[in-house]
């Protein structure tokens, strides 16, 4: 792997959090570099110097949210909670990770071997093969304000 250039003069955690919000709100392709500069407060040169590309920034954000395989508690970072697939409602960290995964699965994984491998590994670590699929599917519907348990009786008036 190549070196990372000059030392960073920014709060990487805050930058990744801001970039994550931009990516999950707008999607990967629709998030422009200018959107990321506005969200993170970085200059264009600093963003490229630190992360190499928009893809590099997305990967860094995804890795920051994935549970650390070396950490038996499954925490993504200090203070983050482990996944509890058995509990009903996902907590805020889980929702952010699921939204990042949805964007990655939909927009990057079909044509990006590295992203596909990263997600495949993360889902495999999750336990039962269908557990991750169920979580992602539930989140996809919840994001769209669709509750399959409560089908609406009537369509909105035209």
């Amino acid at each position, binding site marked *: 792997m190549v070196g990372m250039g000059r030392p960073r003069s920014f709060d990487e955690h805050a930058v990744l959090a801001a970039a994550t919000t931009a990516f999950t709100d707008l999607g990967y392709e629709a998030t*422009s*570099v200018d959107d990321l500069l506005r969200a993170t407060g970085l200059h*264009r040169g600093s963003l490229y110097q630190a992360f190499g590309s928009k893809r590099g920034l997305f990967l860094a954000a995804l890795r920051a949210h994935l549970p650390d395989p070396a950490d038996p508690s499954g925490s993504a970072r200090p203070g983050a909670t482990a996944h509890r697939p058995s509990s009903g409602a996902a907590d805020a960290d889980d929702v952010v990770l699921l939204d990042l995964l949805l964007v990655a699965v939909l927009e990057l994984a079909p044509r990006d071997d590295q992203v596909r491998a990263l997600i495949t590994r993360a889902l495999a670590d999750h336990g039962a093969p269908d557990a991750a699929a169920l979580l992602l599917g539930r989140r996809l519907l919840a994001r769209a304000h669709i509750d399959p348990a409560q089908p609406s009786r009537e369509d909105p008036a035209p």
Partner: protein
Amino acid sequence: MNNAVTLTPDALLVEPTGLDRMWSFTRRLTIPLAHVRGATIDPDAAAEPKGLRHPGLAVPGKWAGTFTKDGDTSFWNVSGRRSGHRRTIVVQLDQEKYQRLYLTVADPRGTVDAINAAITRRT
């Protein structure tokens, strides 16, 4: 098309085409893939201040050659006004004369994906 970008198993080749070869004073850049950190579609980059020009050309809507800004040395070959700026890609480098390449290419999406896939295969 201002720049022909091709990939060999080990290198990224950038060849300014036509008159751009003359304006940019560059026949061909050969960058080892190990020195390429990533590529991004970045149409808005064309609106950034470019910094100081060394050898090269800066006329409205067109920048070709070597520019320095904030200690970074970049190679620019971007033109075509709006239609060209929409096809701007940025390639971040490491251990090279240029920290960054700003290029107008015919197929930004295909070029960026090919560069990122090529450097990923090496790691």
